[in-house]
């Protein structure tokens, strides 16, 4: 909302107290007054935590609405990462003669996480509008919506990862203990992706053609990250630039865990650091803006 003349949002002071039993909203007394500030951030976080089951509900609703939750549906679900692998397998065979077929595993180690990142961020930009009926009819902490998008992406990512061992077996990439790092890397990615999702979901509502643009920006960003290529291609004195890119840590760590068999390096720590910063600022920004959602929709 770049044009809101007075950049102030009214305060909601909520006097909450615990009470058992059925609840429509988790507050017994709420006081909304005209002090131009939304809920205090800490209280908001608590409210989010209290309503955290909503993420599961919304994500499950979305997934169940798309896929049938049975064996056939699940097989269908796996088809997407499988076909992705097939596409790149053919590409590698045709375009890069001489590269070992196991290179596909290297590519998958980047492509599957990228799909997660991509779908979460693009999804976040549309999530407020998609849930317009919810937002204009029921109150709940809106900050749960981008979380939901990320969780849906995570579910797809998890299924996608199941395809990888299959290729590792077929193409003769060994398994190692470094695979155990995957949850840690995924957690860092979630942190970072969520941090960007928040501002994007606000802007995505306000500027309707943003998703198309962002799709390309994201892809550009991805190709500039050593994900489908090795960092060794970059001259040593320029490498620090690549390491500044927060995505570098994520994708290099995935490759390390799946293909190169080594633990993540300090670049992942850097990404985690950036992730915490974006998450704090992103969610703060989001909560300042969410009071507008009802009116914009």
């Amino acid at each position: 909302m770049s044009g809101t003349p007075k950049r102030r949002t009214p305060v909601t002071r909520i006097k909450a107290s615990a009470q058992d039993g059925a609840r429509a909203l988790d507050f017994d007394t709420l006081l909304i007054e005209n002090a131009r500030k939304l809920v205090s951030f800490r209280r908001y976080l608590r409210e989010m935590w209290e309503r955290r089951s909503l993420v599961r509900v919304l994500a499950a609703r979305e997934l169940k609405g798309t896929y049938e939750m049975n064996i056939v549906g699940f097989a269908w679900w796996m088809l997407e990462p499988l076909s992705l692998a097939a596409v790149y397998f053919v590409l590698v065979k045709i375009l890069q003669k001489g590269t070992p077929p196991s290179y596909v595993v290297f590519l998958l180690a980047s492509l599957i996480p990228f799909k997660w990142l991509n779908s979460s961020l693009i999804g976040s930009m549309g999530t407020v509008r998609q849930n317009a009926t919810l937002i204009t009819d029921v109150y709940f902490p809106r900050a749960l919506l981008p979380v939901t998008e990320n969780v849906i992406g995570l579910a797809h990512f998890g299924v996608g990862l199941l395809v990888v061992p299959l290729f590792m077996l077929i193409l003769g990439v060994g398994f190692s203990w470094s695979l155990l790092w995957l949850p840690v890397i995924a957690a860092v990615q979630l942190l970072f992706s969520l941090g960007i999702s928040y501002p994007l979901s606000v802007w995505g509502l306000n500027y309707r053609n943003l998703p198309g643009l962002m799709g390309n920006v994201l892809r550009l960003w991805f190709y500039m990250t050593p994900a489908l290529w090795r960092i060794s291609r970059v001259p040593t004195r320029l490498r620090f630039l690549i390491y500044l890119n927060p995505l570098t840590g994520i994708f290099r760590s995935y490759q390390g865990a799946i293909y190169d068999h080594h633990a993540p390096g300090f670049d992942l720590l850097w990404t985690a650091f950036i992730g915490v910063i974006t998450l704090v600022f992103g969610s703060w920004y989001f909560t300042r803006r969410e009071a507008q959602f009802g009116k914009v929709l």
Partner: protein
Amino acid sequence: MTESAIKVRDLGIRFFLRYQQRPTVHSGIVRFLKHHQKPEEFWALRKVSFEVPKAQVMGIIGSNGSGKSTLLRTLARIYFPDEGELEIRGRVSSLISLGAGFHAELSGLQNIYYNGMILGLNKETLDARRDAIIDFADLGPFIDAPVRTYSSGMRARLGFSVAVNVDPEILVIDEVLVVGDAQFRERCAQKIKELLLKGATVVMVQHNLEAILQMSHQCMWLDKGNVKMLGRPYDVVKTYLEARDLPMVPLPLEMAVPIDPSSGGLNEAG
């Protein structure tokens, strides 16, 4: 006097009539360069003050675009006041349009769970009330059919059944009783009475003036965002109809506030 469940003082809700369409990225940049022309503002509500005592029904009438729904949305915390203040004591359950968060591809039963959880119930409570909700909706075998196959009346039934089973302390209803057949409407009225006996407070928007007379203790007439009249339902409805040269509606057999003036004022009615 009983405690107020809702207190609203000088409430104002402002909208900006700014875009024809949602802006694009470049139109945003252009607007930024033009130095923020001040958009036209529009007060959907202005200087609205009222109180609703606990366990009473407040009926709101008014023509389209008079701010009725905006007021309900503000009570439900969807809009934030731009002016004035608002104090709400109790858990609010809102029925602003029916089936908020219904997913068309999922069955009625699944949607009971989703909608209930969105409204803030947990799974255990829903398990316990599932049958009551299904009974109330009375959809027969259709409860297992996807919601997309429902008629709007059936959706309304399902939505209403979930919302009233949330055990709201404050129920905010926007004209949903209009949908559904006479029998279902009767059951809704019955359910609202039950909730009132349990101490719930109801704010409802209604075009059905008979229902206003029948159920509400207080009536507010909103006109262009301002309170035109606030008082006993009979008086307000009468003035409202006189203002548009319409005959008075037939009085229902049972009225929340009897017309006999000796029966007392508003606040004793509950």
